[in-house]
């Protein structure tokens, strides 16, 4: 049974999406709920088995590598699958409240989201360079239609921009894979890594292409242009899934390549520092932009641009501490960012706009939503006790251990800037109106418990991650492939 779990974690969500497509304008939320359970159950079982037994592999079709495709669930895969399942379930519950299944467009959420879930799991389990490309495409092509659910012309143009840049990224990645196949004749990550030892000009070119492609998909500065619009104009649950999981999938693949087949080319100091430099640029640029945005959802979207930058700081440090710190930061950001987007979506839903200047006084009316925003903000700022703090703390220790004190300064500056953009929103919300005439406007729409509580639970999970470091880091285990 155990070796079947990776397959089930991919195909039960895909099957759920197909079934929900078939069911058509069916009987409301029960079908969707069934889809969520069908998708989450194998993921959680798989994570438990990996925690107990260590790495699980499955040879697709019974063909051994290099002929067939290998699925591999190691600690890193398991952690990402766990993040997907936890964020996925809570966001799904929020979506149950928001999307009416009788509405034709909303119905498509319940087709696309399980498909996206299966695609994400497939990506996290892939141990094959070309299969990783296929799964990355699958993730992107499920994510883009989800942006369209907002139904506005603005969302369509954001989605198209996302599509074009994502295809550009895929093309670069695929060109790199083709070169590696030409060099080694294999696509399995481990085998390719063994045969690539020694490097060479073509290996460097392939690595450059693949990494650039992934940076585009991960919206790392300067390839971030598509992200704020797409994440800012999508419906709240979609924004949460995109920011928490989808962009992280590209970063995940980058880490996977770094710790495997592309270790040599990416460990050259010049390359490692170039990547870290992009990370620094992302942290500073994204944070400053987040400070300047007029709309709440755009603040949260630019915050994603900034937070993804931390994950690139791994490359020049390349030790276990940095590895743990970067991944823990990614997990903590996923949980907290999903909470932020759901909270922002709830605010937008209740007062009909998300212009920050006009939020004045709404904090007292929408106490739960803004409270959620504030709690999730703690983890984003990296204040203790929270998951964000733990990730940044590990990362800080790694930078100081490597003697890169100025990277430590960047991490601290990023935290300060994050505090700036979180408090800017809260200050606007809790500022009392100038006169009674303006008054505190009552909400235009009310949200039900399905929409209210998942966001708060996610925000609290972001805090709880500050205490859950030990079991999760034990699940993550050592760096795969003995990198660094």
């Amino acid at each position, binding site marked *: 049974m155990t*070796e*079947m779990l990776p*397959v*089930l974690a991919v*195909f039960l969500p*895909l*099957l759920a*999406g*197909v079934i929900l*497509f*078939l069911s*058509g*304008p069916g009987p409301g939320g029960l079908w969707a709920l069934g889809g969520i359970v069908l998708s989450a159950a194998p993921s959680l079982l798989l994570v438990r088995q990996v925690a107990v037994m260590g790495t699980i592999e*499955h040879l*697709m*079709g*019974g*063909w051994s590598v*290099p*002929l*067939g*495709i290998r699925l591999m669930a190691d600690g890193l895969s398991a952690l990402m699958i766990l993040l997907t399942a936890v964020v996925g379930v809570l966001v799904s519950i929020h979506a149950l409240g928001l999307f009416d299944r009788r509405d*034709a*467009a909303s119905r*498509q959420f319940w*087709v*696309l989201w399980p*498909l996206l879930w*299966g*695609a994400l799991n*497939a990506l996290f389990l892939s141990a094959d360079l*070309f*299969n990783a490309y*296929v*799964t990355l*495409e*699958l993730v992107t*092509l*499920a994510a883009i*239609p989800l942006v*369209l659910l907002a*139904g506005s*012309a603005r*969302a*369509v143009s954001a*989605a*198209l921009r996302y599509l074009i840049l994502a295809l550009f990224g895929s093309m670069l990645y695929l*060109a790199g894979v083709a*070169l590696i196949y*030409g*060099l*080694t*004749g*294999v*696509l399995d990550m481990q085998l390719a890594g063994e045969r690539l030892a020694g490097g*060479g*000009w*073509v290996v460097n*070119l*392939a690595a450059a292409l693949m990494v650039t492609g992934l940076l585009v998909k991960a919206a790392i500065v300067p390839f971030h242009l598509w992200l704020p619009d797409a994440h800012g104009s999508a419906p709240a649950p979609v924004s949460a899934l995109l920011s928490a999981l989808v962009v992280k999938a590209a970063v995940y693949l980058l880490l996977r390549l770094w710790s495997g087949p592309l270790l040599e080319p990416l460990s050259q100091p010049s390359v490692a520092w170039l990547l870290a430099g992009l990370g620094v640029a992302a942290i500073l640029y994204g944070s400053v932009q987040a400070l300047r945005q007029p709309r709440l959802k755009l603040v949260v979207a630019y915050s994603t641009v900034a937070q993804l930058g931390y994950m690139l700081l791994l490359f020049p440090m390349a030790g276990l501490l940095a590895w743990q710190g970067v991944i823990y930061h990614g997990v903590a950001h996923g949980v907290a960012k999903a909470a932020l987007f759901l909270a922002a979506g709830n605010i937008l839903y209740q007062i009909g706009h998300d212009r920050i200047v006009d939020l004045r006084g709404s904090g007292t009316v929408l106490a739960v939503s803004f409270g959620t925003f504030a709690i999730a903000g703690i983890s984003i700022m990296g204040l203790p006790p929270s998951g964000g703090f733990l990730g940044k703390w590990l990362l800080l220790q790694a930078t100081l251990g490597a003697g890169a004190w100025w990277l430590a300064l960047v991490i601290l500056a990023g935290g300060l800037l994050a505090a700036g953009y979180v408090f800017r929103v809260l200050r606007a919300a809790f500022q009392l109106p100038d006169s009674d005439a303006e008054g505190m406007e009552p909400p235009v729409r009310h949200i039900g418990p399905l929409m209210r509580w998942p966001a708060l639970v996610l925000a609290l999970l972001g805090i709880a991650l500050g205490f859950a470091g030990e079991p999760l880091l034990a699940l993550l285990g050592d760096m795969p492939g003995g990198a660094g």
Partner: protein
Amino acid sequence: MNLFDALTALLLVLLAWRCLIVPDLFRSIVLFVVFGLLLALTWARLDAPDLALAEAAIGAGVLGVLLLGTWRALGSPRRGETPSSSLPAGLRVLSAAGSAVLAGALAYGLHLLPGTGDGAGTLALETLPLPATGQPVTAVLLDFRSYDTLLETAVLLMAVVGTWLARSPLLDALSSEDATAHTPVMPVLMRLFAPVLLVTGAYLVWAGAYTPGGAFQGGAVLAAAGVLLALGRRLGTAPDAGWLLRLLLVLGVLVFIGAGLLLMPAQNAFMAYPERWAGLIMHLVEYTLAVSIALSLLLLFTGRPGLRGISG
């Protein structure tokens, strides 16, 4: 490399260049279709008939139809109008330079590649008597790397749903008042070609097990028959997909996943089929996939969820 190949290569570059710089959108699309056909010819010259068929059917055929459909949907005011490039000249020069560097680096990199003798490709050819189908490309697509193929078919479902979602906020005009339908040529073309396309498509699917061809190529040709019927107003669109249409759209994926999952406990591996049944299962997968692919491509063209027959 003989003169013919050199000429083809030169023409390809020239067509790509023209396709990019020509100011008229319509001509650009036509050039793109010609480019696709020439590319198919190039694949054939490179002894890759499967790719040639796929390129001709999907790259030139389906894509050309989709582009022309989009062009028509843009409406008459835009026709013949120069597509205004929002990019400033400096950025255009930069992107051209970047493309040139990329192309140069790729060409140099490909030039440096060794011919590998012990890769997965060689191994696949050596293992060929083993899988249920003797055709190397089909063996890779439906056996060795069937997992990739299965995931790719899920892309089609996403694309179809995405098209429905993208379309509704943008336009709902393209349907009945359609100039091509009133030309006297259309019914004749339809009567002549629709049956031929159906038979050709079915043949390509069937032949996939033994010779170049397969679900994707065959499905694309079947979709072309559907496009012809839609243009000839024998097939109309409907606002909602009925259950039968929805079932046919996902039939290939369902059969593919179902066969893999149901046999997994017995075979201990996903999509490992027992030897006696392997051939049958692969044929079943291939035929159902072809139906789903054909319908998905057709729906990408019509752009609306439903289909209905029009008698006349």
